[in-house]
Every structure is written in C-alpha cells, then in structure tokens.
C-alpha cells in the first residue's frame, strides 16, 4: 500500500531527525511530534510557528523548482509591459529597469533591484534545486551545509512578490497617459509569485532530517 510505504519511509527518515525542537523566537523547548496534513505547531509561549507539516514531498518540490527555473528565465527575457504613445512603443524587462536606474544616477537602486529580483531569487532556485536533486535519494549534495546556510540567509532578501505588485502600480500609473499592453513577463512574474507563496510554507531545513551523509 502506497500509504503504509510512505509512513514507513517517514519513520525511517525520523531516525536521524531531532527529537527536540527549540522555538527560534523565545528558546522554549518542545518534544517534536509528527504533524498531520495541514497541521502547524505553534509555540505556546510566544505564539511563533515551530514547524509546519511539509505537504510537498521531495520529488514534488524538485518538480516545482524546475518549473520555477523555467518561469524565472521567461520572466527575465520577455517584456513585462509595453507602452504606446502616438504610434511609438517602448517595452522593458527586469534588466531594462536595472540598467535604466544605473544610467540615470540611481546606481544604489539598480544594485538593490539586481540583487533582490535577480541574483538572490536565482541563487535560491539553483541551490534549492541542487540539494533537492540529491535529496530525492536521501543523499546530501556536495557542499550541503554551505548550500543550506545560504538558503536561510538569502531568503529574506528575495523580493519577487513586491516587484509583482510594483509592476501593477506602475501599469496603473502609466495607464493615465499611455496605452499599456501587458507582456508575457508580467504573467511569468505572477506565476513566480504563486510559486513563492507555495514554497513559503516549506522550510528547506527539513532536508537535514530526511537526508544522510554519504558514507565515504
């Protein structure tokens, strides 16, 4: 039975899972227990989330990361919006916006945008994809520890969702004076936002529990 198989697999995985969990916000210690689908364990002292049930398996997460990579490429090469003004048109991509800021004397903003909208999200996708690829067989990828630490550090600096909303505001602002045609880029960013939301309930640190060091 697939169900029993999954359960025994989970038990096996729990061998090197920790028994205790410490709240990251107040240092309270709890004994860990397996969570049912949709369950969230909250700290009774400070109310922070201790851990959530991870409803996507490693295979599913890997598939979504591959999808995210493809959508990320589309989002970056195709125009986000096209403007029209008496016969002339102008379109931009994410990098068009970065370059425009750089050339117009706002290099700091260009740098921030490039990091938070391109380099950090891309490194998240590539690194997570890398560790998931090996985690499918329960193995730890080469450089696993560094990869996992980088994922934790980079996470707060990835701002795809904010850019998506910013695009909508810009479209509405431009709409007063120009003809606005949304490009494929805006859909790609919308889809990326969806994927980001899906992953936001997943803690990559669970991979520490379900993988083992390869015996050398």
């Amino acid at each position: 039975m697939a169900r029993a198989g999954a359960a025994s697999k989970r038990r096996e995985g729990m061998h090197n899972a920790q028994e205790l969990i410490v709240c990251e916000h107040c240092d309270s210690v709890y004994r860990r227990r397996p969570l049912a689908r949709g369950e969230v364990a909250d700290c009774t002292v400070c109310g922070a989330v201790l851990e959530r049930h991870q409803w996507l398996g490693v295979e599913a997460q890997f598939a979504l990361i591959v999808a995210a990579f493809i959508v990320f490429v589309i989002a970056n090469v195709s125009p986000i919006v096209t403007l029209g003004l008496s016969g002339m048109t102008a379109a931009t991509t994410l990098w068009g916006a970065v370059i425009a800021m750089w050339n117009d004397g706002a290099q700091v903003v260009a740098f921030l945008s490039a990091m938070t909208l391109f380099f950090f999200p891309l490194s998240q996708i590539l690194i997570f994809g890398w560790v998931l690829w090996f985690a499918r067989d329960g193995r730890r990828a080469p450089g696993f520890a560094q990869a996992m630490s980088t994922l934790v550090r980079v996470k707060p600096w990835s701002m795809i969702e904010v850019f998506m909303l910013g695009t909508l505001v810009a479209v509405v602002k431009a709409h007063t004076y120009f003809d606005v045609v949304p490009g494929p880029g805006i859909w790609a960013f919308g889809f990326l936002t969806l994927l980001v939301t899906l992953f936001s309930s997943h803690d990559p640190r669970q991979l520490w529990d379900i993988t083992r060091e390869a015996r050398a």
Partner: protein
Amino acid sequence: MNAPPRASELGMMSCHVCRLVTAYTEDPHAHCPRCGNALHVRKRGSIARAWALLAAAAIFYIPANVFPIMRTQSLSSKDDNTILSGIAELWRAGSPGLAVIVFTASIIVPVLKFVIMGYLLVSVQRSSGFVAKQRARLYRFVELVGYWSMLDVFVVAILSALVHFKILSRVEPLPGVVYFGVVVVLTMLSAMSFDPRLIWDNRKSQ
C-alpha cells in the same frame, strides 16, 4: 498546561542557522557540528546593532521623504514627485485602492517599523515583563511586512525604464528614491539584528 522549559534551563542551545539542538556552550568560537556556522546563545551585539541600524534608517528617512523620488517630463510640463505627492496623484488620477496600498507600504510600514523596533529595544533594555507575548507578535509583524516597503522603489524603476519617449515624455529617478531604498534595507537589517529571545530573558515581573 505548564510552560515548556527554556533551552538554557536544560543546558541546551539551538543553532540559529540549521536549528540543531546542541549542548550549551559559552565558547565564542564554537561551531555547529552539523552546518558549521558559529554557535551563539543570542545574536551577537543584538541591541547595539539594532539601535545603530535603526538610527541610521531614521536619518535617511528624512531625505527619502523630503526629496522627490521621480521626475515626469513631457513637452509642456516637468513634474517632480515625492513619495507623498506621488501617492496623492495616484489617488486622484489612477486608482484609490492602489494608492492605499502604496501609502501603507511606503509610509505606514516604515513609520510602524521605527516605532515598534524602538519600543522593543527600550522594553528589552529595561528588562520589562510587560505584554511579552504581544511584543513577540509585534516583532514577527515587523519581520513579515518589512520588505514590502521596496514597492515604491520598484515602481520608479519600472516607470523609468518604460517611459523613455525622447523629448515627448520621460520618467527619471531622483535622489529621494535612493535614500528610500537605503532606509528599507537598513530597517530590515535592524529587525534581523534584534534577537526576539531577549524579550523573554531576565524579565523583572511576570
């Protein structure tokens, strides 16, 4: 239900990066046996760092609001907008709903962050035991909404790239947007430097 024990009472600590539970150590050079990152009971220099970054953000917040963030140029007119006047224009000419969102992201959220971070830092320094759970919740709120303030910065970036019709119509970024971007980054760094565990340490009254 009894309150669960705290890690320090059990002689334990937890890695801030990978969450591995280890034996308590005060060795400043200790490293997590699992992920290799430095182990520490509380974030280092948490209060001083959070204050310094918050003060720097507050200073930059003034030019961010006083200086215009964006110039809209056309044949007949030249229009410089600050954050606030841009929101007012969006309210009148575009969409009041979006104006409310931008107002929340660009004005309310940064101001709330200054107030909440200041309050959290003062209350921790005074070892207050007052409404600890609510303060913990405030901290999580600041962490959650902080980066949405980048909204206006991205709007200016997109419009500057899009509206490039030679002399007919142009949008350019102005210095205000640079200051504002720096404010958002500094407040985010300040919130990250703050250690919420301090809220639960040495409380005078319970």
